[in-house]
């Protein structure tokens, strides 16, 4: 029998004691990341009737990337709620819904469109748990399709994670593969804290195996996805694919890279990075975002503190440039690719 996802006409199935979940994944299968997130949302909505989705075009259209495809048909328009076109209103309403006992999952259509909602996120969502002295959790998830490589117009290709990682009270995560996408979405929704969920939109259609019976690592755990001994390379989301490509090329040239998938951008799980750098003595952090005051800056600084005597070279960053994200014809020049990562690895190895 083939496993099922993404269609509401499948027979109900049981998975890992969660009871009857119509349309839920039942066994291992290859899924693109977008469909894995869809399956994660479906599982979370089946498990808890207080999980509601809010966003622009998430209903009949299934979102501009089809991540919510079929969910409104399955759960109704009172749980998959198409909103007016106003991001601050979407996030502000989600906060109010959380105060009313719901677990809202917000879709922001593109990375650059989160900024109309930044006040609600930074001054309200992030601070409410503290302001209310923990009397009531604020379990809002904000899904943010982020990053370049899609040849789009302005505001559609950005990587704004540093703003959120800088903000106390928020948790920030980013899956790089389908299995993590499926599980991390459910973990984020179960979290009592606000979670900004960065989705690597360039990889929405990259397939990977999802195992609905094998829970992924904890939400805020960083993982080593390829072992190596010469240099540690760290990234998240879409960048992990680039790092794995770089490692493949390096291996053909006799250099082994240890590839670390950050997964959690706030808090950062430093122990696996420190352990890796203690082994390799070298660190390269790669990111699509501009490097100035970036996540890479923080990781480099922290590793300089925590692994100083292991480092054979200064921690290096490979980033977008400190310019506005350029027009699409230039994105290939702007965004770090495997060659740019390897150039930094070479520099690190020259010390």
């Amino acid at each position: 029998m083939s496993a099922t996802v993404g269609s509401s006409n499948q027979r109900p199935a049981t998975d890992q004691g969660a009871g009857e979940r119509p349309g839920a994944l039942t066994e291992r299968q290859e899924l693109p990341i977008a469909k894995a997130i869809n399956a994660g949302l479906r599982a979370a909505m089946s498990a808890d009737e207080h999980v509601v989705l809010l966003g622009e075009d998430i209903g009949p259209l299934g979102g501009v990337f089809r991540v919510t495809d079929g969910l409104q048909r399955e759960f109704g328009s009172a749980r998959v709620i198409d909103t007016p076109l106003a991001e601050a209103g979407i996030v502000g309403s989600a906060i109010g819904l959380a105060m009313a006992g719901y677990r809202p999952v917000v879709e922001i259509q593109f990375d650059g469109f989160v900024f109309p909602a930044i006040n609600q996120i930074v001054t309200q969502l992030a601070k409410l748990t503290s302001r209310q002295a923990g009397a009531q959790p604020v379990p809002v998830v904000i899904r943010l399709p982020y990053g370049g490589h899609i040849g789009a117009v302005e505001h559609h290709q950005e990587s704004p994670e540093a703003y959120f990682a800088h903000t106390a009270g928020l948790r920030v995560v980013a899956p790089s593969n389908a299995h993590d996408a499926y599980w991390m979405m459910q973990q984020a929704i179960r979290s009592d804290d606000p979670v900004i969920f960065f989705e690597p939109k360039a990889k929405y259609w990259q397939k990977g195996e999802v195992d609905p019976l094998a829970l992924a690592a904890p939400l805020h755990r960083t993982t080593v996805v390829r072992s190596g001994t010469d240099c540690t390379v760290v990234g998240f989301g879409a960048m992990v694919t680039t790092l794995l490509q770089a490692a493949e090329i390096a291996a053909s040239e006799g250099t082994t890279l240890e590839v670390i998938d950050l997964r959690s951008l706030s808090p950062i799980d430093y122990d696996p990075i420190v352990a890796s750098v203690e082994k390799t003595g070298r660190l390269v952090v790669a990111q699509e975002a501009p490097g100035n005051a970036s996540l890479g800056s923080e990781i480099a600084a922290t590793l300089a503190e925590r692994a100083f005597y292991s480092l054979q070279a200064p921690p290096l960053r490979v980033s977008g440039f400190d310019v506005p994200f350029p027009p699409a014809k230039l994105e290939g020049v702007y965004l770090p690719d495997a060659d740019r990562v390897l150039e930094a690895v070479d520099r690190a190895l020259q010390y």
Partner: protein
Amino acid sequence: MRLRYTGDVTEMTSFGVEMVDPEPIRFLDDEGHYAPSGTAQEFADELERVTLDELCQWYVDMSTVRAFDTECTHLQRQGQLALWAPSVGQEGCQVGIAHAAQADDHIFPTYREHTVAHVRGVDFVDIAKQFRGVHHGGWDVTDPANGNCRLYTLVLGAQTQHASGFALGQVLDAKREAGNTQLAPGEPGTPTGVATIAFYGDGTSSQGDVSESMVFAASYQTPLLQVVQNNNWAISVPVTRQSRTPLYRRALGFGIRAVQVDGNDPLAGYAVARRFLAAARAGEGPGCIEALTYRMGAHTTSDDPTRYRVDEEVESWRRRDPIVRFERYLRERGVDDDFFAATAAQADASAKRAREGILALPDPDPASMFEHVYSEPHEAIDAQREWLLDYEASFEASFGTEGGAA
């Protein structure tokens, strides 16, 4: 006399469209005589079941808050509060609307709704915590004793979106209970039996959040009542800088029922809020009340209103002081000196208790800033707390805990 904006707004904005602003709804004239405006007639039956004892309680509420409010200004002048935002002059619409709400309605205030918070049960000392610098909130929003009054919000307008979302939650609750899984665009409203009230002011009305909250409330026909207290001044900027149209008309533009009331007449706020809240709870959609009032004091204790407004204006509003007007009305209803003397004593005693409670508030423990950053465990925050405690302890170790350092 007819209430007017500081500027003659209506004539500036007609653009040839026939739009006459009805007289603001009022039951009491400036002297406190019962003299309903023509526009008040249709709301008069909302007052029929209000007893004289209840009206006296409203007076007690207003007087008690005025005394507390005045005490807090004193405390700020004495260096005991970092800041205070007086509500003097705005007690009238707050008391009426607060008493129009049901116990299970929810309230989203800005930071000048001391009367609303008091009527809902929030302790005066808790209100002052934020201004004393010991807390960013002050009370437990989940404690029934606080009457579903959410915390004060300082980034103005943000709370109107939370209120709108909360009211959407009330719609979803009702739908789930009814087994209705759909919320279609353009569908009629859903009876909820409960409502949500958002307070804001004339300055805040310019914030995009307020407009967005109206878009959402109208779209989903949520049981939201917005109360815009137009006190004429956003710190130093007059309402005519905020809007060329009366503020209630903005709500009309979003498809929300809206009226202007005399904000210094508790009866007007009460009657209209009762009617609008009942409609909201019955699934007839959101409402908006523009309460015309006046901030008789400063914006906050850091403000100097003499720099931007003239004495004549302040005096003209002082004559319409909601507490004075209501006292005259109650006297006409037969309430005697004994009640007013007792109320004054009660208000003074309450303010004294609040003062003592505020002065007795302990400074927060340094470690407390790490306590509720997140609801779930967070190792990095825990580590910072441990570091701070060790750091602080290192001084004790260096200098001795008995204060015995040379």
